[in-house]
């Protein structure tokens, strides 16, 4: 890994040779070049964020034009004491934990196998990567077809291999199975992401280290645990960071697959938030909810990045 985002930020820049240049000074050009991006990001990200924080202290409803009252921290209080919120947090935690668990497990295994450099591994890697690049909403919608009892391909394959009647279970209709239906599709889609990052990690380990270990008569098993794993770990942790942030925000795939149902068993926080904001039109309440989610993901990510840097320093 040449650098992770944090390192990259810290990287020194080439020295300036400004004196000689005709026309604008470097300083002017720098601000001219950076300016538009910063302005656009301020307009589309920071301004809305401040607006959201402001709205979160009000009882504003976007579908009505009554007077807006400031109600202090009432929204926050209500959200944090609402059992629905905690249920969606729980659904999100379940989804996050198991998708990351399976993606790390399968992704690493695949990367390890691909790194054996068998003939044609490039071609097969490209094929494995395809699902990751596709529209989650469109693909998720089609998975509801694969999950149909009786006629769905998924249920048929399960029947074929396990003998369980294909029409006897419904992946997205059953309270017990629905949380797993979204884990399966997300794992199918995003395992290649973890795989690619692990593969980069495995390829970054120089052969000479293994050769040295071989000279010391370290067993393959020992080499795996004391060399391969520690050297891939920073990569793996980076992959988990990306997947963690992405799946915390998860909306499109799950909305198309289960719509948050049955009941509210797969209502992830983003789906809950969408309902509050755009179906119940409790804009103030939803804004507070959004702030809480943003603080959570930002906080967790910061703690995690600290841990990641510690691992890298070792």
């Amino acid at each position: 890994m040449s650098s992770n985002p944090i390192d990259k930020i810290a990287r020194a820049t080439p020295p300036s040779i400004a004196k000689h240049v005709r026309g604008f000074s470097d300083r002017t050009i720098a601000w001219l070049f950076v300016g538009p991006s910063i302005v656009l990001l301020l307009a589309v990200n920071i301004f809305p964020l401040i607006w959201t924080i402001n709205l979160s202290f009000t009882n504003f409803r976007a579908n009505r034009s009554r007077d807006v009252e400031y109600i202090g921290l009432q929204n926050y209080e209500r959200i944090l004491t609402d059992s629905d919120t905690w249920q969606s947090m729980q659904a999100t935690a379940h989804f996050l934990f198991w998708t990351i668990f399976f993606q790390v497990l399968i992704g690493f295994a695949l990367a390890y196998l691909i790194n054996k450099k068998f003939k044609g591994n490039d071609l097969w890697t490209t094929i494995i990567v395809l699902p990751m690049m596709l529209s989650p909403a469109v693909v998720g919608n089609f998975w509801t077809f694969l999950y149909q009892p009786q006629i769905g391909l998924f249920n048929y394959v399960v029947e074929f291999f396990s003998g369980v009647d294909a029409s006897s279970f419904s992946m997205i209709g059953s309270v017990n199975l629905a949380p797993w239906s979204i884990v399966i599709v997300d794992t199918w889609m995003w395992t290649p992401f973890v795989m690619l990052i692990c593969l980069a990690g495995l390829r970054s380990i120089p052969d000479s280290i293994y050769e040295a270990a071989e000279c010391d008569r370290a067993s393959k098993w020992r080499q795996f645990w004391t060399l391969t794993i520690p050297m891939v770990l920073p990569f793996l942790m980076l992959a988990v960071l990306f997947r963690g942030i992405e799946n915390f925000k998860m909306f499109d795939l799950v909305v198309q697959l289960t719509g948050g149902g049955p009941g509210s068993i797969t209502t992830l926080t983003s789906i809950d938030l969408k309902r509050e904001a755009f179906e119940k039109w409790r804009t103030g309440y939803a804004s507070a909810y959004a702030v809480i989610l943003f603080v959570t993901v930002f906080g967790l990510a910061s703690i995690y990045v600290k841990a990641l840097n510690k691992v890298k320093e070792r």
Partner: protein
Amino acid sequence: MSGFSVTEPSKRQKWISGLLVISYALITIMPLLWIIGTGFKSPEDAISYPPKVIFEPSLEGYVNLFTTRTRITASMEGNLPPPDTWYEQIARNSGTIISGPSRYGQRFLNSVIIGFGSTFLAIFFGTLAAYAFSRFKIPIKDDLLFFILSTRMMPPIAVAIPMFLMFRQLGLNDTHLGMILLYTAVNLSLSVWLLKGFIDEIPFEYEEAALIDGYSRFQAFYKVVLPQAATGIASTAIFCLIFAWNEYAFAVLLTSGDAQTAPPFIPTIIGVGGKDWPAVAAGATIFLIPVMIFTILLRKHLLRGITFGAVRK
């Protein structure tokens, strides 16, 4: 130990790992092949049990995707002129007549306009910013770069609430311009980070030589740096395009008609009497194939793109 190196996997190891990886690849590609296959099935074949692997190909799904149809009623029968086109014929065979085009073409076109528009702007502004970040000493540079990245951590729904209100004020709800601006902003973080990485890799000496030869900064930028960064810019553009192409959350909340893109539209396709899966699959196929092709073209830069340049091979 066979072979020349202790680190070279044995023939047997290669064989077994190849077998396992290929098996996984075949399983993982199944749903995609199923989408493509279903697009060419007749509605009856699509919902048969057991699922049909071998079937008589039909273009009914594609005809249904692009048209709206009405059922032929008893009073119409006999009065209808003979079908004059192949697609009219296909519709007749399933007891319907074509009453007009569907909205799919329009939605697809919206995806193209918004995708290319936002990609162009994100690359244009992104290249400028990335060049400045790469070559100049900018105060609070680190903070700015992190700020640019952090904008990607926001859940889209959280951003959508104020965007919805803001767009409503400005009359940008459900307009191409609004969506282009929004996607440009979302893609900017990706394009700045990726392009900065690509430009960092171009040796500074080239520009230095050009500057000493009397080029201005601007000339050095577009005559020396831009051509060198062309591959990087192209692959960054494809990543931005794919993001805008696939995006759903903003699209479903901020567009409903005129500017609606394909992702929110495709799941809403229904046929005459129930969900028309071949038409949905046909719509998905046309929509997904370009991305598949781009992915194959991009495979060398894939890792870099999906990690914002954090991991490079």
